[in-house]
C-alpha cells in the first residue's frame, strides 16, 4: 500500500478552540500580534418553534457564539455560529453582522465557528430559527465593533466620535480629510471599554440586508474543496463501518469475524453498545439500533468488502419502556418487540380512526352540528415513512485521547450532544471539542447524533483517530424516518351548503401530526380535533417541517374539496375563512396571524393571475403557516404518458425582512422541488421489520426532468423581524400539487406517494 496517509492540506487542521470566558454579552479581546476579536453571545431558550419569533427580547439572550476578527493587515473575518446544511446561513447570518459593522462585504471572510462548549447554548440549526435567533444579537455585535473602531479613530485624531463616518471598512473624518481602515484601528479599539448603549439601524437604512448576495462558500463548493465530514482526513486515520440489524425489532446476538479479519487492510472487528444501560435519553438521542458490529480498517473499500464477510446472528427484541425527555418534558416511550409491516400499520391506523381518541380541542358543539347535518363530507388521508436521504451519507470523525475528545461532525445541534458524550463516552465536558463541518444536506436527519457516540466508542476502542462512514444503505435502513400518518377531515354542511362544523382526527406511528390550534381552527363555530399514537420500534425523527409536512397536505386538499362541494373558488374560500377567523376568532388560541396568511394568498393570486385562469386550468393552490413564516403556492401541471409534468409553480412567501433575497429564493425553489418529489415518489416500505428501499436505485428521489419547468418566487414586503425558510415553504407544496393533479386528472388524491395512487386504475 502507498499514498494512504500522504500529507496534504486537508490534514492540516486547527486543533484548538477558543475557550475565553465571556461574562457579558460582548467580549473584546486583543489578539496576539495586534488586531481585535469581538465575541458575542445570545440566548435562545429551547422554546417551541412557533413561540420563538415572539421571544426576541434582547434582555433574554444568554451566551451563544460567534466572532468578528480583525487583523492589523485589515482582514475582517466573521464567524458563522450556526451549522450549515444548505440553508445559506454561512452568508445570511454574517450579513446581519456586517450590516452594522460596515466592513467591505466583498472582502469579508466568513468562517464556520467551531463548537464552543457551554456558552453556545443554542448553536443550533433547526426549526427554521437561524434568522430569528441571529437578528438582534448579530447586528448588535456588528454595531458594537463598529462603534469601538470609530472611538479608536476619534481618540487617535482627537475629534468627537460623532463627526466620524464609516464606509466599507474605513473610518472617515471628512472635515480634516483623514481616514483609517478597520485593520489600522483594531488593536487600539480592542483596548477600549465596550459602549454602554448600541443603537441599531432602522430597517429603512439597511444597505446590505435585502440585497442579493452570493454564497460566501460558492467557490469552495464548485471546486470540490474539503468542506464535508466525509472529506475529512487526519494523519493515521482509520476507516470504520458498522453493521446494524437487518430489521427493526432485531438486535445483536453474536458474530463471527474470523473470515473478515483475514481480509486485507482490516484492523479489528468488535461490537459496541451505543448507549449505556439506563442512559436517560433526551429528544435528539434517538438511535435505531443500540448494538452494532464494527469493522475497522485502512481504507473504505477494504472495510466495505470485509464487512460482507462478518457472520452476524440477530435475535428479536423484547418490548422496552424508557423515560425520554423531549419538548414536552419527560415522557414514557414504549418500544414494542416484534416485526412490523407497512400493510399492518395501515390496518392499525384505520382501526384507530374508528376508536375514541384523545381530545385536543373543542369549540362549540360539533357533535350536535354533525348530528343535524344535511350532508357530511369525510375524507381520510395517509402518508408513509420517509427517509431523509441527505446527499452526504452520515459520517463522523473521532480522535479520543487522554487530553481531549476531538470530533469532526456534521451535526445540527452540537450542544445537545454534550451530555450524551459525557454520559456514554465518560468524557468530561471540558475535554470535548467539535469541529462543525458543512453538511451535505440534513432535512432533520442530522439532529440525531448517535453516530458521534458510535465514532467515539470506536476511537476509544482502537486508541486511534477514526472516521465512521455509513454507506447509503446503512443510512437509509437506519430509521429516524418521518412518521407514517393518517388523518380524517370531516365537514358538516347544512341544507344551504353552509359548513356548520369541522372535525379533524388523526395520528401516526409512533406520533401524530394534528395541530389543533392551527388554521382552520378559529374559523368554525363548531370544531373538534382529536389525536392518537401507535407505539412502534421503527424510529422516527424530525423531517423538514415535522408534522406540518403531512397535516398541511391533508388540510389543504380537504379545503379544496370542501370549497368545490359548496361551490366556491378554492383560493377565495381560504381567504374568506381567514377573514372570518380574523373578525370573529373562535376559541382561546389560534396559532396564526390571519392577515399575514391572507397576504400570501392575495400575492399568489395576483402573481399567478389566478382570477383570469381558464376554466379548465390544471392548477391547484395551497397555503400554510409553520415555523414562523407563511407560504402559498400555485401549481400548474399537465399529464404526459401517465406522468405529471409540472409546468410552473408560483410561490408567495412572508418571512418578514428578507435578509438575502437570492438565498431566500433558492430556498423556496428547493422546497418546491423537494415537496413535489416527496409528494409524488417518497415512501419507505417496511416488511417484517425490514426497510424495503435500501438505496437510491430503489428509493425514488425527484430528478432533473421531473422538476418544475419554472418556479417564480415572490415575497411579501414588510418590516417584521426575519423568520426562516428551511421549512415553511415545504408543507403547502403537497396540497397545491394534489389539487392541481385533481384538475388535471379528475382524481382526488388521499394517499402518498401520489404517483402510486394516480397510477391505480
Amino acid at each position, binding site marked *: 500500500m502507498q499514498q494512504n496517509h500522504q500529507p496534504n492540506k486537508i490534514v492540516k487542521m486547527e486543533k484548538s478552540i477558543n475557550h475565553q470566558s465571556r461574562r457579558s454579552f460582548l467580549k473584546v479581546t486583543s489578539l496576539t500580534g495586534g488586531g481585535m476579536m469581538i465575541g458575542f453571545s445570545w440566548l435562545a431558550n429551547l422554546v417551541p418553534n412557533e413561540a420563538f419569533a415572539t421571544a426576541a427580547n434582547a434582555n433574554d439572550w444568554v451566551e451563544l457564539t460567534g466572532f468578528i476578527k480583525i487583523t492589523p493587515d485589515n482582514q475582517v473575518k466573521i464567524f458563522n455560529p450556526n451549522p450549515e446544511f444548505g440553508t445559506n446561513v454561512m452568508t445570511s447570518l454574517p450579513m446581519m453582522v456586517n450590516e452594522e459593522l460596515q466592513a467591505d462585504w466583498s472582502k469579508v471572510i466568513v468562517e464556520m465557528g467551531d463548537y464552543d462548549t457551554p456558552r453556545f447554548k443554542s448553536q443550533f440549526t433547526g426549526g427554521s430559527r437561524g434568522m430569528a435567533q441571529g437578528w438582534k444579537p448579530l447586528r448588535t455585535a456588528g454595531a458594537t465593533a463598529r462603534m469601538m473602531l470609530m472611538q479608536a479613530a476619534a481618540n487617535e485624531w482627537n475629534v468627537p466620535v460623532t463627526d466620524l463616518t464609516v464606509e466599507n471598512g474605513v473610518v472617515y473624518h471628512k472635515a480634516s480629510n483623514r481616514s483609517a481602515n478597520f485593520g489600522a484601528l483594531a488593536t487600539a479599539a480592542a483596548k477600549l471599554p465596550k459602549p454602554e448603549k448600541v443603537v441599531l439601524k432602522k430597517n429603512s437604512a439597511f444597505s446590505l440586508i435585502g440585497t442579493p448576495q452570493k454564497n460566501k462558500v460558492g467557490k469552495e463548493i464548485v471546486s470540490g474543496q474539503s468542506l464535508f465530514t*466525509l472529506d475529512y482526513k487526519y494523519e493515521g486515520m482509520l476507516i470504520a463501518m458498522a453493521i446494524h440489524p437487518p430489521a427493526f425489532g432485531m438486535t445483536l446476538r453474536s458474530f463471527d469475524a474470523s473470515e473478515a479479519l483475514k481480509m486485507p487492510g482490516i484492523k479489528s472487528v468488535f461490537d459496541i453498545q451505543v448507549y449505556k444501560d439506563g442512559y436517560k435519553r433526551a429528544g435528539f438521542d434517538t438511535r435505531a439500533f443500540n448494538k452494532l458490529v464494527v469493522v475497522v480498517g485502512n481504507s473504505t473499500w477494504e472495510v466495505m*468488502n470485509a464487512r460482507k464477510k462478518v457472520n452476524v446472528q440477530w435475535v428479536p427484541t423484547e418490548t422496552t419502556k424508557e423515560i425520554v425527555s423531549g419538548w414536552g418534558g419527560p415522557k414514557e416511550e414504549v418500544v414494542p418487540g416484534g416485526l412490523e409491516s407497512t400493510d399492518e400499520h395501515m390496518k392499525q391506523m384505520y382501526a384507530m380512526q374508528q376508536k375514541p381518541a384523545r381530545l385536543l380541542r373543542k369549540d362549540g358543539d360539533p357533535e350536535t352540528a354533525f348530528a343535524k347535518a344535511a350532508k357530511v363530507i369525510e375524507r381520510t388521508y395517509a402518508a408513509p415513512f420517509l427517509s431523509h436521504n441527505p446527499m452526504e451519507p452520515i459520517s463522523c470523525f473521532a480522535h479520543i485521547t487522554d487530553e481531549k475528545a476531538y470530533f469532526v461532525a456534521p451535526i445540527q445541534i452540537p450542544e445537545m450532544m454534550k451530555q450524551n458524550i459525557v454520559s456514554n463516552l465518560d468524557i468530561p465536558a471540558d475535554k470535548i471539542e467539535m469541529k462543525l463541518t458543512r453538511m451535505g444536506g440534513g432535512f432533520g436527519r442530522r439532529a440525531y447524533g448517535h453516530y458521534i457516540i458510535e465514532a467515539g466508542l470506536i476511537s476509544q476502542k482502537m486508541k486511534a483517530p477514526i472516521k465512521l462512514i455509513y454507506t447509503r444503505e446503512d443510512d437509509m435502513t437506519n430509521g429516524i424516518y418521518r412518521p407514517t400518518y393518517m388523518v380524517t377531515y370531516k365537514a358538516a354542511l347544512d341544507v344551504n351548503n353552509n359548513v356548520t362544523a369541522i372535525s379533524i382526527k388523526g395520528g401516526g406511528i409512533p406520533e401524530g401530526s394534528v395541530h389543533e390550534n392551527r388554521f382552520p381552527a378559529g374559523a368554525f363555530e363548531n370544531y373538534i380535533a382529536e389525536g392518537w399514537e401507535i407505539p412502534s420500534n421503527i424510529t422516527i425523527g424530525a423531517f423538514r417541517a415535522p408534522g406540518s409536512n403531512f397535516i398541511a397536505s391533508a388540510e389543504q386538499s380537504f379545503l379544496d374539496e370542501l370549497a368545490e362541494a359548496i361551490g366556491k373558488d378554492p383560493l377565495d374560500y381560504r381567504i374568506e375563512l381567514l377573514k372570518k377567523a380574523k373578525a370573529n376568532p373562535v376559541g382561546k388560541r389560534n396559532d396564526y396571524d390571519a392577515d399575514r396568511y391572507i397576504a400570501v394568498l392575495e400575492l399568489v393570486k395576483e402573481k399567478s393571475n389566478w382570477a383570469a385562469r381558464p376554466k379548465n386550468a390544471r392548477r391547484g393552490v395551497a397555503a400554510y403557516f409553520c415555523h414562523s413564516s407563511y407560504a402559498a403556492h400555485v401549481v400548474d401541471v399537465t399529464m404526459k404518458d401517465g406522468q405529471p409534468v409540472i409546468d410552473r409553480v408560483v410561490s408567495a412567501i412572508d418571512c418578514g425582512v428578507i435578509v438575502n433575497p437570492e438565498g431566500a429564493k433558492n430556498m423556496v425553489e428547493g422546497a418546491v422541488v423537494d415537496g413535489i418529489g416527496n409528494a409524488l415518489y417518497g415512501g419507505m416500505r417496511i416488511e417484517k421489520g425490514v426497510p424495503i428501499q435500501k438505496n437510491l436505485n430503489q428509493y425514488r428521489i425527484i430528478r432533473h426532468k421531473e422538476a418544475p419547468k419554472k418556479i417564480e418566487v415572490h415575497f411579501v414586503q414588510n418590516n417584521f423581524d426575519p423568520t426562516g425558510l428551511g421549512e415553511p415553504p415545504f408543507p403547502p407544496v403537497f396540497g397545491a400539487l394534489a389539487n392541481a393533479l385533481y384538475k388535471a386528472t379528475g382524481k382526488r388524491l388521499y394517499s402518498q406517494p401520489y404517483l402510486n395512487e394516480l397510477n391505480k386504475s
Partner: protein
Amino acid sequence: MSKFNVKVNGKNHEVDVDPSTPVLWVLRDHLNLIGTKYGCGVGSCGACTIHLNGRALKSCQLPVSAVGAQPITTIEGIVAEAGEMHPVQKAWLELDVAQCGYCQTGQIMAAVALLKTKPNPTEEEIESAMTGNICRCGTYVRIKAAIQHAAKSSTK
C-alpha cells in the same frame, strides 16, 4: 492487491489496491482527490461523476482495473484544465446554484461533459443528460439555468 498506473488530471499515479476498488475510492482514499463525492455506491446519484476519456461516468461503478491507459479528469482537473474557474463553474457561481453543495461537483462534471458534445443543448437535452445526477436540495431549476448560461457565455 495489485499495482495500477492511473492517469488523473494529466498526472500519473501508481496505486496498490484490490483490482475491484472503484475509481471513486482510489481518488478519495488514495489520491486525496475528495472533490469526487460518494453518494450511493450503486451509480444512481451521480455525486461521483468523473470524466473518463472526456466522457461523464460514475466513478463508483468503474473498477480501477478497467481504467487502463484511459485518462481520468476530476473536478480538481477541470479547474487546472481551464487555468482558472471553468466557465461552467463560473455559471454555477453567477447563478448561485448550490444549497448544501454536496452533489454540485458531480453535477458540474456532468454539465461540462454535456457541453463538450452539445455546446447549445435544449432543455430536454439538459434534462436527459443530467438525469443521473440527483440534487436532494432541489436546485434543478438553477442547474439548468446555469448550464444554459455557460452555453451562452462560451458561444459568445
